């Protein structure tokens, strides 16, 4: 079922491309036709953005996970003030639109600091803070979904709070959060496109630049769509593999109540 869907997703654009090679007056696939020298140069130009897109996504995802994880610990803390600080953090960073935070960091922050920030660093800061709020919430939800009995069993064998989290609660919470975390990675990959606004030479920026010189937006943006499609498919595949590997050893949560509450005398 899934495989067929992917085949369809890949075959459809290929058909479009082939159809376009007929060069009707609407289509001008020559701009990215790999058989032509000019097409090859254009393709190379468009693909040169992929490295930046990947680098930006990796940087943002890594930082967002580190920050989000640390922040989520505040969310599950037993101290009220720390919980409040957590809420404030999450609400602030989740409610600023990512583009706005990119613009704020790139144009606004240097005024405060008195030194310029390069576009890549600005985008990384803005997007990883934005993502960290979501990741923290996902992890906190995962921790809350762990049964109370698990906390109590860990307490009853005298584990410290750290060990209880490290060995009992977080492994279960993270496993349960994996689908949502994977989703977040895909969202962040797509969000890296916003860095085009401040001049990071990632795929969208490249497509815009080429589109302006070639006047062929349909062909060029179709190519851009394909680039994202491939990137996202690769990421989703990786995530699913990870889920399988981590999920393989937990059938379903323990505790197995067998139902009957008979009191036999």
């Amino acid at each position, binding site marked *: 079922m899934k495989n067929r869907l992917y085949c369809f997703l890949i075959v459809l654009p290929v058909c479009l491309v082939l159809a376009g090679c007929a060069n009707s007056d609407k289509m001008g696939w020559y701009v990215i036709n790999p058989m032509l020298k000019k097409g090859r140069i254009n393709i190379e130009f468009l693909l040169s953005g992929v490295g930046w897109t990947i680098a930006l996504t990796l940087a943002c995802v890594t930082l967002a996970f580190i920050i989000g994880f640390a922040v989520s610990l505040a969310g599950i803390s037993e101290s009220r003030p720390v919980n409040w600080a957590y809420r404030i953090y999450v609400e602030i960073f989740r409610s600023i639109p990512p583009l706005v935070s990119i613009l704020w960091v790139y144009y606004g922050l240097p005024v405060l600091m008195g030194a310029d920030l390069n576009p890549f660093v600005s985008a990384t800061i803005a997007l990883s803070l934005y993502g960290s709020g979501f990741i923290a919430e996902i992890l906190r939800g995962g921790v809350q979904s762990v049964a109370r009995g698990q906390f*109590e069993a860990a307490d009853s064998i005298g584990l410290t709070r750290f060990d209880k989290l490290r060995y009992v609660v977080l492994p279960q919470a993270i496993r349960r959060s994996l689908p949502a975390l994977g989703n977040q990675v895909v969202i962040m990959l797509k969000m890296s496109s916003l860095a085009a606004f401040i001049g990071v030479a990632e795929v969208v920026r490249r497509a815009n630049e080429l589109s302006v010189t070639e006047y062929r937006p349909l062909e060029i943006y179709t190519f851009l769509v394909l680039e994202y499609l491939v990137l996202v498919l690769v990421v989703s595949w990786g995530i699913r593999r990870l889920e399988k590997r981590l999920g393989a050893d937990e059938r379903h949560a323990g505790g197995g109540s067998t139902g009957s509450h008979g009191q036999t005398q």
Partner: protein
Amino acid sequence: MIEFREVHKWFGDLHVLNDINLKVHHGERVVVCGPSGSGKSTLIRCINRLEQHERGEILVDGTAVSDSRQAMLDVRRDIGMVFQQFNLFPHMSVLENLKLGPIRALGVSQDDATSRARKYLERVKIPEQADKLPAQLSGGQQQRVAIARSLCMEPKVMLFDEPTSALDPEMISEVLDTMIELADEGMTMVCVTHEMGFAKRVADNVIFMDEGRIVESGAPAEFFDNPRNERTREFLEKIIAH
């Protein structure tokens, strides 16, 4: 060993523990029974501070159960607890379940923890299940693993909160047999249970709770054959009629 002195606890308006006075001596087996909602679980969960009492004093081996985090870790390491729902760690194998406490809480080495775990699995008669996951075991086996997990801490007291009431009838006896063996070895035990056969067999002292109070306590012979309290009598009749 364990002493309650005028202990009170409230859940909001509900007075769950009302002036509890109780002594459990070294090597003694106490069975706690009473109707649902009478505060039995709350009572034993106060002993290792899974619940906090609000007034009075609870002493475990001379240490007051309190807010002190380190003191509570020490107290908990001396007290084993077995839950109605087993509460095994589902992401760890049986062996890892047993080794976690000794390694992380007692600082036992890997090798010693492994041999300790195997010893207690042998004791609860399921040595061959060591590498399985909890979800792959039957309810009775899971509960015996839970007992072994507590025993691996080599506790001075074992607390049981209705250990057999989530089990299918045919698995109850395997868990009760394990508990009887423990009792015969001289383990100090506090058991919340409605298994009256078990109570008669091992208990030194049976306690009946109702609405947060201990309304009757005594040796099982006396308790079952000649209950003084009206509520106790009603309760016993219901259980035996069952």
